[in-house]
């Protein structure tokens, strides 16, 4: 099982969107997006499914567990989720929720 490598938060720490970011479904783009001052990132497919669960209450563990339950046929998703969250954190989209 892949461990969070460069993620600066624990596997059981709730993760939130960074300040000033908003996540929503965007009909015109037919995908989820992140909105921030003067910009937008498209999060199609699995990226949107992961980010949908980054809401300040769920941890990495919880997100992985939910996704495995939502997509029962999928292989172990943990490594993919960690990879995506690393990218998201590197881009400043997410942060650890203050507890």
């Amino acid at each position: 099982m892949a461990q969070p490598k460069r993620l600066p938060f624990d596997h059981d720490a709730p993760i939130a969107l960074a300040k000033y970011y908003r996540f929503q479904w965007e009909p015109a783009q037919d995908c989820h997006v992140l909105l921030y001052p003067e910009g937008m990132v498209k999060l199609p497919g699995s990226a949107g499914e992961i980010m949908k669960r980054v809401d300040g209450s769920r941890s990495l563990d919880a997100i992985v567990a939910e996704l495995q339950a939502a997509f029962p046929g999928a292989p172990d998703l943990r490594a993919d989720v960690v990879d995506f969250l690393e990218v998201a954190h590197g881009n400043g989209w997410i942060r650890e929720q203050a507890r």
Partner: protein
Amino acid sequence: METAGSANKPGNPLWLLAEVTYKCPLHCVFCYNPVDYTRYGPELDTQAWLRVLREGRELGATQLGFSGGEPLMRDDLEEMVTEARRLGYYSNLITSGIGLTEKRIAAFKEGGLDHIQLSFQDSTREMNDFLSSTKTFDLKKRTAELIQKYDYPMVLNVVLHRHNIDHTQQILEMAQQLGAEYVELANTQYYAWAFENRDQLLPSRDQLMRAEEVTNRFRERVGNAMKVYFVVPDYHATRPKACMNGWGSLFVTVTADGVVLPCHEARMLPGLTFPNVRDHPLRWIWYDSPGFNAYRGDGWMQEPCRSCPDKVKDFGGCRCQAFMLTGDATNADPVCELSPHHHLVTEAVERADRPALPAGVKPIVFRDDRNSRALSAASEPATPVT
């Protein structure tokens, strides 16, 4: 972001700029509002604006800017902000902060306004006042505190020109004192009022170089505590900006009186009729109106743009600048060194390099109703050629 749609199939707009009023308590000499704003019709009412917001959202716009004039001059801005959030926009208020009371910012927060960009209350008069006057600083400080209290990022925009660019150090220190997280040092772009005042406002190359040095030293000192963006004036560049990321590609402006434009300045272009939201749905205006299709794609281009490999990157630069400087909007933007008209830009820069302004330079013109009426009277009638 997206690339420009082709002439046949434009993409949807992502940015809607709502210039909700031309009224403004300031008189900035570099204002990009049309110099003849006093001759345009009445402002759209609240219901019309709410409809514009809905139609923009249905088209797929996600970013919304409330601008002007000074958007706080509209007492229905709270209602627009609330509707914008309900519709799912990421909304930005672009303001001088004049008129931003605690009651209003609390209502904006409650309504779901996402972002505020505080622009410097600058005209040459006000700039001097600002740099020397405690009173003005205190006003700005209180506004900055309100912005922070209501948990907005502190984003400051300062327009630079010949008369204030030598104060870049003081401006940056002032921004730091105000707790700014982001500062945009935007060199004046020479349109509208700024174009009227161009010879007064264009900095010399030395001034520009010193300001960039000051900015770089400041960045090294403060690190990530404050992000400073230095926007170089395009007159000092050798290739044109990708204006609006392409005509009718991502960006749509609705002006105070309801005219819809592909950029803030396009109203000046002759031979084009830009429709009004009072008469047409925004969808038709974006996809089908002749004005929005005029400079999509590259079929309109002349040489050297037509055969230039960079045309997919810079779209030939700015149509309005091409028109203002050469009289023909289909020419290459003369900022480009490949343009046969490039000398028009380099000559202006050379004039700016002289230590003193030459005799006979027009006195500076402040943006106010009186000057706007005078400039309206002096220009051609606004009758569009169809």
